[in-house]
């Protein structure tokens, strides 16, 4: 059935944004897993990947917001604010749409928690951030269940190209153990034992206040401007 795409502009925009969001989230997850697996061996490579990971994740979040907001303009679906914001309230495939909303919230919260990691604590933030993979899996379920193009061969290829590298990297991460990708912790600074500390304190003479060296006679002070005739 031929149709005018201009009549379905919001719907097409939402579908496009959803596909872009999927690709961006996949890219961010792949980069995160690469860093977690410590795959870039060169020094400084990880530091160069981190801003890229962050930028792609933010782009994915923007695409995710566009995916939801453009649905509001769709005349056929008419989901309303409740339909796109509260899980399982949409009348169109409520289960899979609800899973997608949960996945969106999960990706947004777990991604943006990066900016609150000082408050959360780095160790705890890292543990929380791992759940991004679960949100990614929910997003894949949402695409398969509620995606208009889920039956199309090209989207299945895109999904396969997304899932396979993530699966491989995740398996590598699981098989390599919990502490492999982490940077080696700095060696703890050893404090000298108490008697040695006392002895060291006794051996070092207390600081003596030295007299400030005076400038030699005739030297010009730096903070005085010269007169018009050049004298200080």
């Amino acid at each position, binding site marked *: 059935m031929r*149709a005018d*795409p201009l009549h379905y502009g919001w719907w097409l925009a939402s579908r496009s944004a959803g596909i*872009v969001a999927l690709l961006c989230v996949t890219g961010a997850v792949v980069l995160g897993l690469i860093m977690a697996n410590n795959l870039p061996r060169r020094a400084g490579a990880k530091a160069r990947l981190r801003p890229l990971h962050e*930028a792609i994740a933010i782009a994915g979040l*923007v695409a995710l917001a566009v995916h939801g907001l453009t649905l509001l303009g769709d005349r056929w679906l008419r989901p309303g604010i409740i339909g796109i914001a509260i899980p399982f309230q949409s009348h169109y495939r409520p289960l899979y749409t609800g899973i997608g909303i949960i996945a969106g919230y999960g990706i947004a919260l777990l991604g943006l928690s990066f900016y609150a990691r000082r408050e959360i604590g780095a160790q705890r933030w890292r543990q929380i951030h791992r759940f991004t993979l679960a949100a990614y899996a929910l997003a894949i379920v949402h695409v398969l269940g509620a995606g208009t193009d889920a039956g*199309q061969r090209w989207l299945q290829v895109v999904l396969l190209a997304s899932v396979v590298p993530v699966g491989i990297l995740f398996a590598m991460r699981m098989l390599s153990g919990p502490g492999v990708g982490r940077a080696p912790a700095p060696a703890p600074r050893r404090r000298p034992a108490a008697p040695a500390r006392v002895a060291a304190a006794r051996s070092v003479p207390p600081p003596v206040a030295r007299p400030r060296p005076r400038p030699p006679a005739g030297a010009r002070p730096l903070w005085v401007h010269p007169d018009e005739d050049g004298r200080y």
Partner: protein
Amino acid sequence: MPDRNRMSRRTHVVAWSTIALFVVVLVLLSAQMASGHDPALSANAKRAKALRRQAYAQAQARAARAQVQAQAQAEQQAQQEYDQGYGDNGSGSGGYGSPDQQSQPQDQAPQDAQPQYQAPQPAQPQYQAPQPQYQAPQPQQPAPLQSTTS
């Protein structure tokens, strides 16, 4: 400072790539829809076609049932008239009763019993098996023996 410039440039590249990707996907989906291959719209069309086909089949079945029912009713009525004709002429003089009774039936079949839809008659099979061309040769009569003796 160069690091900051590099990061800013990389962020810009990611942002513009995302926008370009969005536009490309949008154009591809629009082209798919304009060419009549949109999965959702074609699924709707298929569903509507299936519903129409189902409704047509149901109407056809209803009409066939009504036709059978009307036929049975007509046969029953004819049987009743026949029996009634014999019953009136108890003398056994034969016939189907008086001419008045024949011309004016006792009860008419209801109008709504007539089917509105005429179900198509089952088509005669077009295919006819070819007649076998081969004919077995008839056994020839043996020629009468002629005596060579004269």
